[in-house]
């Protein structure tokens, strides 16, 4: 990622730092009882969630769950049958033009005019948003710097790799300096390097105060990236809230992993006898001195750790094991593709 914090941004608005978060702030996206169907097919049923400004919100669901339909409603392309959707307080039904000013939408099948150069492509979209030549020069320079495409501005889009094209597409979304970015599967089809670079750009954008609503299948990266998440399945919201709330195992048990510098064969048996530990087992992967512990939800982890120390063997680490996003996803969604 070539953008550096010490770089002097040319477009002050685009590169403005985020203001302090205010609890009373109007949500960037507010979806309430959104229902939509295509003929007989119920795509969305009473979908409700909210996305706070300057956060990165993941939108996850299996194929046919209703992700793209929701995105299209939010970006005003689709009028919902029922329910209310607001973007920064503007209704997508009655104030579509105001909503469009606030958002930048990158569809899953992004369109590229392949015979244009990168600069011409961005110049076209900037001009379509009514920017004059000076403003266009400034903003194109900024978005090219941000997406690390400075050196490719005169290249034909047809000659760019998929990852590069994805960056150009993202740069295009940014030319009118939207407050909210709606990205539909932005990392699909990208190799690992391009994916990591894209995530870096998204982090940078979040630091700049943009709200990012990202629909993706790449769950591990979303877990690292997102502040909050909505899981949708078969048109119903299964979970919506902070990522921590989803990943913390809020069930009856807590899970920890302990690693010793060395341990005798009887260690597993000893651990199972300690107070507060419901069960101890050797993990399928990991070193030979590692053990997974399942603690009672009411148990004090410090007390458990003290008990383990008292066993007299040097401990290398003792850490809580959080649920993986893909595990949460599997738990919350139903098997099979929706028909």
């Amino acid at each position, binding site marked *: 990622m070539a953008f550096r914090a010490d770089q002097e941004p040319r477009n002050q608005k685009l590169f403005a730092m985020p203001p302090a978060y205010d609890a009373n702030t109007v949500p960037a996206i507010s979806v309430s009882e959104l229902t939509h169907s295509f003929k007989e097919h119920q795509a969305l049923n009473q979908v409700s969630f909210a996305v706070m400004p300057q956060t990165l919100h993941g939108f996850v669901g299996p194929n046919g769950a209703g992700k793209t339909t929701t995105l299209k409603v939010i970006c005003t392309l689709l009028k919902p049958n029922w329910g209310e959707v607001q973007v920064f307080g503007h209704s997508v039904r009655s104030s579509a033009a105001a909503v469009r000013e606030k958002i930048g939408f990158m569809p899953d099948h992004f369109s590229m005019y392949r015979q244009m150069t990168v600069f011409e492509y961005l*110049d076209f979209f900037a001009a379509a*948003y009514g920017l004059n030549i000076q403003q266009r020069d400034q903003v194109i320079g900024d978005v090219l710097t941000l997406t690390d495409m400075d050196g490719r501005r005169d290249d034909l889009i047809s000659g760019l790799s998929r990852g590069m094209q994805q960056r150009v597409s993202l740069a295009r979304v940014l030319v009118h300096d939207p407050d909210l970015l709606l990205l539909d599967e932005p990392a699909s089809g990208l190799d690992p390097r391009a994916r990591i670079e894209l995530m870096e750009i998204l982090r940078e954008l979040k630091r700049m105060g943009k709200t990012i609503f990202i629909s993706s299948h790449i769950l591990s990266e979303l877990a690292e990236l997102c502040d909050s998440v909505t899981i949708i399945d078969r048109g119903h919201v299964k979970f919506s809230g902070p990522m921590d709330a989803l990943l913390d195992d809020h069930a009856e048990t807590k899970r920890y992993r302990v690693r010793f510098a060395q341990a005798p064969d009887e260690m597993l048996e000893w651990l199972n006898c300690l107070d507060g530990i419901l069960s101890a087992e050797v993990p399928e992967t990991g070193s030979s001195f590692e053990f997974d512990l399942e603690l009672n939800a009411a148990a004090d982890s410090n007390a458990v750790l003290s008990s383990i120390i008292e066993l007299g063997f040097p401990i290398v680490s003792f850490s809580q094991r959080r649920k993986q996003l893909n595990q949460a996803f599997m738990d919350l969604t139903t098997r099979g593709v929706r028909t």
Partner: protein
Amino acid sequence: MISGTQTLFNWSLRSDSRSVYPHIVRAAFAGFMLLSILGAWGASLSGMAPGLKFFEGICSLNVLLISVAGISYFVSAVTEEKDSGTLALLRLAGVSPLAIVLSKSTSRLISSLMLLLIQLPFTFLAITLGGVTWQQIIAAYLALAAWLCLVANMALFCSVRCTSSGRAAGMATSALLMFFAAGPLLQQFATLKAGSWITPGMLTACASLYAEVQQTTVTTRLEEIFATTTVVQLAGTQLWRSLMIGGTLFVLSVVMFNRYSEPVEDNTHGQSAAVRRFTVGRCWRWPIVWKDFLFFTGGRTFLSMKLAGYALLVGGFVWFHQLERPTADAWLSPDLVRTAFLTIALLLTIEILLYSSNSLFLEVRQSAVASLKMLPIQTPVLLLQKAGACGVALIPAALCLLLLWAYDPQSITSLHHSQRAGLTRNVFDAVFRDLPGAIIGWLIVVMLMTHLTILLSLYTRWAALPLAVFLTAISFPCIGAAALGLTKVTEEAAALNGISWGVWFGVIVNLVWLWLFVLLPIEIEIVNRWNRLSRE
């Protein structure tokens, strides 16, 4: 090879039979034939060989439809795979070039032959109306089928040779225009007097070449069939030559397939930035006009090429006039002014139709509809800007027409009976007998056909243009009759009130009702369809 061909062929036929549009077209054609028969029966009361007239009309429409299908439907046989990037997958699956070419072209050929077959029972009814025999009908349909074979294989060759459907359509259009223009051009050259550098041998060669071309063209063959009062020969020279040329083009397509199906290496940098700054430059105030003018219609470079091409065409007419009459003071004779005017008007019409069939269609193919919809530009404004871009690209042809008009308006507008023979004379007389009427008629046809083509291009993949031509051919008699009637009524009403410019008042009334009742509903449907596509 057989298995691959069969699979592809079955798939193509199945998708054609499952799609509702081809069936609608066939049913509409059958309905149109029934209406035409009804019209011909009405005409039979006047006792003027109505069966022959009806059949002549149907055959002319078929020639037009097949030619238009060549530049829009058949040209995409292979290029649609290239456009969507699936050609490499077919080749990876081990499907041979012959199998691909055979299956992709034959299914379309069969689909089009079905359209000819469906007409046969109705056309036999023409016999009962009088003036036409069953031998003439069979001979005419054989000639049409051979023409179809020639056009389909010519388009297939363009489809194999070119990298995209747009380029293939351009190549096929040029080839067809050259084919149709070759006869009249050779005929005119053959009538020149031998001079310093035009030897008698050249003139004889032109005359014999003209005779050979005439024997290959379907229009000459049809004229010959309609003119025959005795027993007509079922399979003429045109049939065998068309099949032979079609077959040769098919073989060439197969042989050259591998050479031209390799993926094109993308040029990362294209032109240098300096050249690019001149040819493309910065985006204009109307961004869609800029984008479409430069990246859809070919931009400044292609505009200059077209300007040079049209200038050469007019220059060719001037040169021909100097050869014909070396001592003449005028640059062009009245006859040649009219010919040049008509030729350029025809080319302008073709340009308009090709632009209208691809302008929105390519946005759909490039999945750009949603992105364009998100711009702060209203859909009608966006569509107007697209039309504006095409308007800029049409400047060379329009400029040539204006120059010809300015050079000799009298020759173009005056009542004149051409000295030419046959079909050419009929066309000339029909057009120039009532030029204001012809211009208004042309405007109505072009506006209707353009609107229909744009709308249909948002529904079908490649058949928008032939469908629009067909629908215009069906609806124009009704619209034309209503326009004529209204003009007459307006003219008489104006005359009664002492208004001298009644004709122009009639023209305005016609344009208003045409827009209000015909074009506006189509425009609304185009906007609605565009909006629906943005959600898909």
